[in-house]
């Protein structure tokens, strides 16, 4: 009986030793947003259109609609137009409804020309829901200008 009490008391002191050691050791948290950490390149942010390697002014998208059909959440809408004198359609608008996207990567994977990639945008935040109906073509144009 006395032995149990002594063993119990020693176990409590050992536990207290652990917390006091943690008290004097440095914190492990990152004071976001005053400090930020680097995001790995493979992070699955929202998708973005990549430039065609042969013609960096345009995207590689051929408006086939595979990404739109394969998306499990029906988050993608692709609109293309056939310009005069060109054989293939060009992309006019690419609407991604990011509020229903599940980051599965099926659109990136099934694109036959590899026109999509994940961006590293890990902290989008806004007050309005409409900000997250991204138009990837507009984003592409903005990135081209920079």
């Amino acid at each position, binding site marked *: 009986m006395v032995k149990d009490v002594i063993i119990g008391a020693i176990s*409590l002191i050992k536990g207290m030793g652990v917390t006091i050691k943690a008290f004097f050791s440095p914190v492990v948290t990152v004071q976001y947003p005053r400090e930020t950490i680097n995001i790995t390149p493979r*992070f699955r942010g929202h998708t973005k259109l990549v430039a065609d390697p042969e013609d960096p002014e345009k995207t590689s998208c051929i408006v086939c609609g595979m990404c739109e059909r394969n998306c*499990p959440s029906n988050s993608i809408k692709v609109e293309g137009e056939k310009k005069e004198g060109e054989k293939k359609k060009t992309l006019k608008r690419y609407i991604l409804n990011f509020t229903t996207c599940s980051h*599965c990567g099926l659109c990136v994977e099934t694109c036959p020309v590899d026109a999509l990639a994940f961006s590293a945008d890990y902290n989008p935040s806004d007050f309005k829901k409409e900000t997250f109906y991204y138009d990837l073509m507009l984003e592409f144009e903005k990135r081209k200008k920079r």
Partner: protein
Amino acid sequence: MVREISDRFKEKFPSIEPKEIPYEQRGYHLFIEAEKNNIVDIAGFFRNEGFYLADLCCVDYVDYLELVYFFNNHNKLCRIKVTVKTDPDKPSAPTISHIYNMAHWYEREIHEFFGVFFEGHPFMVYLFLHDGIDHYPLRKKTVPVPEWDRQILNSFRPEEQEDGFFLNLGPQHPSTHGVLRVVVKMNGEYMLSAEPVLGYLHRMHEKMAENRTYQQFLPNAARMDYLGALNFNLGYVATVEKLCGIEAPERAQYIRTITCELNRISSHLLWFGAFVADLGGLTPFLYTFDDRENILDILEATAGSRLTYSYFRFGGLYNDLDENFVDAVKQFITRLRSRFSMYENLVTGNVIFINRVKNIGVMDKGYPIRYGCSGPVIRSTGIPFDIRRHEPYAVYDRIDFRIPTGTTGDNMDRYLVRIQEMEISLDIIEKALKDLPAGPYKAEKIPKKLKPPKGDIYHTIESPRGELGVYIVSDESDVPYRMRWRVPSYSNLMTFPELARGSLIADAIATLGSYDLVIPEIDR
């Protein structure tokens, strides 16, 4: 073993002929077509032979409804599928809940989703759904709920009983199980009965599976159990690969094993923090999250997500490992090994913790057969049943690892089994990293639109909570005909009402924490 059971079955039931099925194609060994009048005797026969009921589900072939029973054995692998056909207009079948306690809830679920009435079942009330749902959800055609059935389904009204003091545990909890509501009848400090009410997180994954192609269902698998998401991914992908006969390359199998074991460790770490936080010690929660951040960073660098991964694809992986993976994992293993002694000092040896946890919620060896418990719950009673050893998948047949067991089946044993499982997972990862072969990470020539051959398949894997089973019925189209997920927390939770009877509320909370429940996977 299969031959013996088949012979003994033929002796007892000479009119039925069990068919032998190739296990590699279908995942079960024998197929028995039973009738309504002998299913109860068949269930009793299997109970006497020491088989447990792994799953009970229902498939709606439009001309008839088929009830599918899967029996399995803890000692030697022998899975037997028994089916009972019933007509679609007034479907009914006799109940086997007096033989196997776990059929109690499975039959309630089938009743509210398909409309099959089980004669003799004592308590056919709503389990997942609620009043106001007018059609049976999982039927292929719209079948309205008749009035007599609606009355039976709504008959659980604890607020109208006058002689008991009813209390609600949840659905909002200070402890982090998920949204579970338990209606508890109290007598002072002691609990007289505990009745879980589920369905607060029901998202109809099984119905979604019937409306999406096999490829499109991939993100859903991770959302079911977000703590062990890679294991659920693996369950789904491995089942479909087995059905189509696709073989993933060696490197992909090794990487799948390593990432699944990392996920197992992160799930156990979170359980550890939450369990001690339930009991009142709020600090180890923060320490385990610190360790878990390491794992999440490693997996983020490879798979791109932190919690709900959709990393596995049919025939391999989405992408290969990144270049820092092996070094980061080795560093992580060293670091976590040095932290175990700290957790030992802070929690495991603490006399207050031991008194809260030892000899509470004792489960003897009779429970696993009656309830189909699996995972650390069954290993804590002393039965060394682990699907990774019993029915190896991925590369577990090439890696030698120990199976930890407990002795008494109380909360302390479940706790110790999980701590030891974390250490064993570290060993498995080390051994797999050593043998990691180079090569392709994805099989070639996988069709873009997967159309599996006609048939059904049942495949199990070991998730951090226990035995996860996936049953897919395919009809040669690119959309599954029926997908059934047999989740481990469901059958583990079924033991709670029996264990909680007569105990104090504080003990019941500790027992509930020790099961490691994740309610989204119960509610699917």
